């Protein structure tokens, strides 16, 4: 019987997948045909945007600009995740320490990220370092605050079990508190990834010599409007890819959580 059900379910899933393609394809087609004879310098045809896209990103500017952008972003993001989780466990377990640092954390978190770009340049100069550090600084907060919440909310019965079996403090962090907080931590990491992506572009708009944001800004300033649109297209595609990859990892890591909820 299952052999009968399987293909039917697979076919159904394929049909659902097709539905999700309808709007993007329709939008692209509309864009393509509506802009085909465009003479406006600000709304170039999709055709010329795609040509620019191919010329810019595939692959003449790939190694010189796309890779540095993505590399800086991922480096800053990873630093934020490591730091945010480590500090989050510390603050979550030591409420007094958290109390002491909380006002400072709230102040730093409230600073608008874009306003910090000039500050980072004054402090750290131009080049990769200020961009990476600023990305890490801004993205650490969603990870940190979510980790604190998650670590605090570990079930008392589970804590009791871990303590009664005499697990050491480090073992309790590793085997109990971190996994229990994983749903919160990953929620924070997801927000942080979006912020990191924004920071990638923002940091490249001032005092930069390469990067996707830099190239896009240059195009706009030299009236290469179709190149500017090509930059938007690339950013959109990259954003979707990052998010998709994150969802895959999250689903894998939190399988126990979703299944536990279902049962």
């Amino acid at each position, binding site marked *: 019987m299952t052999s009968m059900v399987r293909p039917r379910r697979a076919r159904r899933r394929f049909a659902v997948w097709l539905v999700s393609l309808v709007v993007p394809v329709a939008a692209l087609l509309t864009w393509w045909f509506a802009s085909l004879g465009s003479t406006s310098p600000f709304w170039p045809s999709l055709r010329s945007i795609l040509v620019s896209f191919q010329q810019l990103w595939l692959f003449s500017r790939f190694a010189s600009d796309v890779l540095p952008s993505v590399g800086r972003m991922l480096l800053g993001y990873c630093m934020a995740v490591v730091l945010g989780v480590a500090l989050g466990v510390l603050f979550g377990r030591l409420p007094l320490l958290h109390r002491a640092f909380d006002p400072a954390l709230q102040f730093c978190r409230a600073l608008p990220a874009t306003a910090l770009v000039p500050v980072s340049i004054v402090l750290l100069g131009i080049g990769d370092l200020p961009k990476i550090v600023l990305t890490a600084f801004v993205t650490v907060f969603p990870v940190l605050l979510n980790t604190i919440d998650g670590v605090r909310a570990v079930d008392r019965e589970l804590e*009791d079990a871990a303590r*009664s079996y005499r*697990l050491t403090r480090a073992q309790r962090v590793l*085997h109990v508190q971190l996994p229990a907080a994983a749903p919160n931590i990953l929620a924070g990491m997801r927000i942080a990834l979006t912020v990191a992506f924004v920071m990638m572009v923002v940091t490249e708009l001032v005092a930069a010599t390469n990067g996707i944001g830099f190239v896009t800004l240059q195009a706009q300033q030299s009236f290469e409007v179709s190149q500017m649109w090509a930059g938007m297209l690339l950013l959109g595609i990259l954003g979707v890819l990052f998010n998709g990859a994150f969802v895959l990892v999250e689903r894998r890591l939190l399988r126990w959580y979703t299944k536990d909820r279902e049962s």
Partner: protein
Amino acid sequence: MLTVEHLRKSYRSAGSELEVLRDISFTVNAGEFVTIVGPSGAGKTTLLRCLSGLLPSSGGKVVLTETGKVIQSPPPEVACVFQDYSRSLMPWSKVGRNVAIPLKNKIRDRAARRAAVRKALEEVGLDGFDDSYPWQLSGGMQQRVAIARAIAYRPEFLIMDEPFASVDAQTRADLEDLVLRVRHDAGLTIVLVTHDIDEAVYLGDRVIVMSGRPTTVLRTLDVDLPRPRSQVTTKALPRFTELRTEVLTLISGAKTGAAR
């Protein structure tokens, strides 16, 4: 042997003091199965958390008589089985790891640890389930994982806090008999708290009946029912009914006493 001497526990909140345990004294002999019953809200869980060293008492002490050690933090001689399996097992770890992780400091050798895990799972009838996740198992099976985790730890004392409260009646009877068998095989000393009078009489060598809050020991009853016990024949004995009635009378007395 385990001795509880004049144990007291009060919680302080917002200036007022809530007295939970007033004066608890009893001993548990080596190899004995002691069950503790009391009206609901009698601070049974508080008592067990003090016994297992998870909660500091406000007075009195719990002593491991052989070594003279006073329990202040969880001792290696004691393992616990908690009330709610879904909260005391780690849902992100497979069954095998759930049993293995508490052994990390007791059995350093990896192969020996794996063997201990396998043996414990066999003893509770869960061989072959190492690679399942807790949420893939039924409630009764999950509580058996918790029991396997406790016996793999090779404790002298097993402390159980209403371990069968969240499973259905038939599974409950199965688990009761499983505990009796495991206790017989491993020579464990068990302290089990329950609100179920039948269960207390059926399992115990002795039943300690507690009063309502603030809790004291009302009476200790010796259960002179023959072993091995059986759900069918033991519970049909006139003596079983007598003991059960006696406990029930004490507890309903405790309830009306508490109401006054």
